[in-house]
């Protein structure tokens, strides 16, 4: 009776069959396994297929180019677009000049952003400056605001009459401004640096905060001079953080669209992203797809370089144990000047732009800053012929509300889906850890991060612009926006989901297995209730980013699916800067409220622990 095993099995074939049958049944009944297959399908459809489609679209002939290629037929394989972008008489305008501009802007902007971020991080974390808490939270605000807020404010202040239209504030007061201050690389670099410095500030700030001051003290005790300590201890330990923020900033710079479009387009100063957008607008999608491929390759190259350079030094900080409270650097006589400088800087990058934008929306005739020019028209005015083509004020304007509603709808649906997938991805990746499929899922979910937003938009455009086999044409549909936004946010959702699962550990679920709870019961009663905060950040982050995303959706929206962000873009395109500014302010208010709620609920704070 105890040797039951040997009884029923004589021949080898039945044994093999029995084993395969039994094992197969268990694999099929194994939820993580089923989920991995399901998720793999989702990823292939939303990430891999679009990528392939992008490459495919860049080498097939589009209908309007059939006449340009001798004997060309629609859908034929061609190197026409590659040739035109890289080696034709218009390559200079189409590609090389924009590429150089992109590189110039990305590098200079990153250098500036990193200098600002490092100085600010050091002052806030390691000196005895007052109002630390205030400064620490204020320093990240520029990144929370839509990236073109500062550009719009810049235009409002520094615009000159080169491109016609109304003058900026400075010109109104009689200051003559050269073009290079009003438009082009200089303002683009400054405005982008002011938007992206918080990356460095956060990364370097947390490296400095985690920095074990005992390392410093050890050097001090050994008789090292302050300058040597700074160079060989502090800088050496913080270097990886600086480097990784450099990579992060520069890769964002390469894909950046909104600032160059506002400050570069008026004088025809193009970068890759705006050049690509122009190609799409002028009906040369083939060129646009080639440029998108270049942008993606650049981003991947940067990521590769960063892995190469950072290697294992990525997490360099802190060995073990709780470091004592850091010795704060005493600013002494400089304390008040430094405080004023930091305060003034933050005032200039946060309060001034918002104030300028707000002020502008109350001026009836643009560029005339006097009290009798004051109006609430652009906010609540009825339609008046002759003013912004008879459009009513934004709060009365049905297109504002439609766009707001679309933005909210997009935010809610994309983020809900992100939350759903985030939890599933996190669960599956953590449960299947050690298997190949888990690694593949993890890496696939990261791909959208590598792709600049505008290129991501182009990818989706290339796939869904026309009907392909079973996949219908989704161009112009709201669903397309939802899919793209969701896929673009997969990396954050997956990260949030898997870190929440990691924190939970496997024993909580195993205790449920032992107790006899089935998979759905375990998910519903044991895992999901404990994932609330993870779920929330998997949902809120995509929501906020959906609300302020412009560069990806700008090529996917149609008049029927206008969003708040694309509305501001459109208004500024028409030259209705007040309207544009007013919509941006509305957006800022919404985003700040959402961010506030996110921090309150999750208890997490971007600036957490810095200073204070």
């Amino acid at each position: 009776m105890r040797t039951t095993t040997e009884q029923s099995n004589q021949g080898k074939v039945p044994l093999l069959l029995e084993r395969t049958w039994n094992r197969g049944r268990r694999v099929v009944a194994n939820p993580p396994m089923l989920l991995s297959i399901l998720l793999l399908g989702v990823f292939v459809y939303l990430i891999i297929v679009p990528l392939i489609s992008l490459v495919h679209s860049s080498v097939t002939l589009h209908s309007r180019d059939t006449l340009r290629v001798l004997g060309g037929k629609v859908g034929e394989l061609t190197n026409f677009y590659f040739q035109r972008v890289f080696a034709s008489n218009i390559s200079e305008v189409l590609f090389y000049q924009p590429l150089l501009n992109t590189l110039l802007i990305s590098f200079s902007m990153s250098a500036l952003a990193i200098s600002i971020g490092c100085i600010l991080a050091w002052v806030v974390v390691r000196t005895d400056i007052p109002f630390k808490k205030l400064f620490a939270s204020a320093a990240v605000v520029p990144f929370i605001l839509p990236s073109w807020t500062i550009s719009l404010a810049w235009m409002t202040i520094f615009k000159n009459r080169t491109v016609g239209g109304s003058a900026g504030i400075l010109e109104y007061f009689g200051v003559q401004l050269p073009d290079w201050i009003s438009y082009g690389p200089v303002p683009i670099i400054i405005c982008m640096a002011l938007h992206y410095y918080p990356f460095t500030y956060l990364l370097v700030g947390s490296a400095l905060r985690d920095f074990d001051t005992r390392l410093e003290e050890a050097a001090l005790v050994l008789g090292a001079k302050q300058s040597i300590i700074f160079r060989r201890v502090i800088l050496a330990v913080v270097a990886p953080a600086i480097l990784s923020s450099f990579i992060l900033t520069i890769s964002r710079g390469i894909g950046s669209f909104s600032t160059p479009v506002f400050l570069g387009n008026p004088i025809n100063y193009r970068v890759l992203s705006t050049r690509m957008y122009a190609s799409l607008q002028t009906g040369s999608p083939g060129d646009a797809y080639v440029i998108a491929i270049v942008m993606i390759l650049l981003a991947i190259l940067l990521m590769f370089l960063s892995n190469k350079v950072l290697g294992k030094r990525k997490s360099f900080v802190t060995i073990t144990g709780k470091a004592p409270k850091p010795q704060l650097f005493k600013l002494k006589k400089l304390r008040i000047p430094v405080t004023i400088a930091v305060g003034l800087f933050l005032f200039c990058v946060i309060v001034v732009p918002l104030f300028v934008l707000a002020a502008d929306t109350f001026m009836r005739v643009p560029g005339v800053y006097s009290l009798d020019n004051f109006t609430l028209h652009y906010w609540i005015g009825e339609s008046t012929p002759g003013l912004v083509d008879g459009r009513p004020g934004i709060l009365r304007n049905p297109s504002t509300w439609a766009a707001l509603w679309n933005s909210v709808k997009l935010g809610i649906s994309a983020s809900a889906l992100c939350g759903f997938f985030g939890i599933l991805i996190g669960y599956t990746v953590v449960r299947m850890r050690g298997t190949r499929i888990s690694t593949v899922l993890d890496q696939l979910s990261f791909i959208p991060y590598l792709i600049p937003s505008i290129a991501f938009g182009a990818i989706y455009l290339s796939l869904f612009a026309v009907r392909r086999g079973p996949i219908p044409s989704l161009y112009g549909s709201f669903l397309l926006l939802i899919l793209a936004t969701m896929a673009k946010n997969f990396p954050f959702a997956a990260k949030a989901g898997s870190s929440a699962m990691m924190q939970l550990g496997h024993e909580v679920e195993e205790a449920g297995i032992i107790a006899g709870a089935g998979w759905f019961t375990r998910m519903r009663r044991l895992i999901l209730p404990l994932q609330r905060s993870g779920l929330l950040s998997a949902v809120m982050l995509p929501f906020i980013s959906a609300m302020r995303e412009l560069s990806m959706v700008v090529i996917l929206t149609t008049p029927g699916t206008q969003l708040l962000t694309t509305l501001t873009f459109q208004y500024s395109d028409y030259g209705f800067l007040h309207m544009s500014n007013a919509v941006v302010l509305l957006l800022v208010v919404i985003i700040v409220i959402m961010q506030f709620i996110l921090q309150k609920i999750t208890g997490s704070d971007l600036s957490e622990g810095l200073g204070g």
Partner: protein
Amino acid sequence: MADIRLEKITKRWGDVVAVDDLDLTIEDGSFTCLLGPSGCGKTTTLRMVAGLEEPTAGRIYIGDKLIHCSERGISVGPHQRGVGLIFQSYALWPHMTVYQNIAFGLEMEKMNKATIETRVREAASWMQLEEYLHRYPSELSGGQQQRVALARSLAPQPDCLLMDEPLSNLDAKLRLDMRTELKRIHAMTNMTILYVTHDQLEAISMATVVAVMKDGRLQQLEDPLKLYKHPNNLFVANFVGSPPINVLHGNIFAEQGIWRVRTSDMVFSLQRNPEDDVQIKDGQNVVLAVRSEDIVLDDPSASFAMTIYSSLPTGSDTFVRLTRGDLAMMAKLYESDSLPVDSQVSVGFRPERVLLFDEDTGQRISLGSSLVGFTEATAS
């Protein structure tokens, strides 16, 4: 009630062999400890019994029921195995009250509300948790959380209870309390308990049987007290007991019909226990092992001189570190005394307690060989 039998169980992760061809029977009603250093495969073994990990090869029975057979691809679901499991982290569900935690498994068995209530209260009363039933785990101390975990596993009345280092998160005093508690639970319920630990003191003080593991293989399955005195091999001798057993390396030679062991500068004469049947041969490399409490200081017979390196009185007894050339040993004296550093003492072994192991295989050659004599080796 049921016994647990593992037959030829192997668990591999890629090239790593966690458990290697393990045959182990856990007797019905026993309190069996799986003891070994981290990475020896003890937790993996336990998880395979629970059904949370699937063996690469082999069979597992609980009672007469085949619950796993790799050959036939059979693997019974964890909850159908009739086992309770206590995790190292307790794995209490933090969003449920103590009551809900204990009741969860009963709900899964579709019991009616009244039965659940009775069972929960019963389990809670065993563990003295009645007044905490409506608290959340985070509102309890570590010891109380441990009791909740126990009550949760006991409420469904499993045949076997599996425990994975359950006491390692408790402080020393609570750990002692919980050991007595667990031993009482075992005595009262007479459940089969499989208990994983790396703490040899815990294993010896609680278990009825100890299974020592190393590198995925079973080293010895033994009554805990015998384990201490009669380790099968050098690894077990070393792992069980604190401070670790003292060792002297040497080789065997026969002289005038008497087996002798020559160490670097001494020669010990050996009288084998007649029950030992392991062959020894001339020139074999061996290890003499003696526990610290079996070293006698100021021993008049068969003694040799050593230097006191330092002494550590604990209040009840004293640990003395002794040296002689390259040789270092730790002796335990049953009185508290601070001995002067660098003074000479004469040292002897309790003759019937000296263990002899083969140096190459680590296997025990002789049990309680008496040491009949000692001479300073002549430099040759």
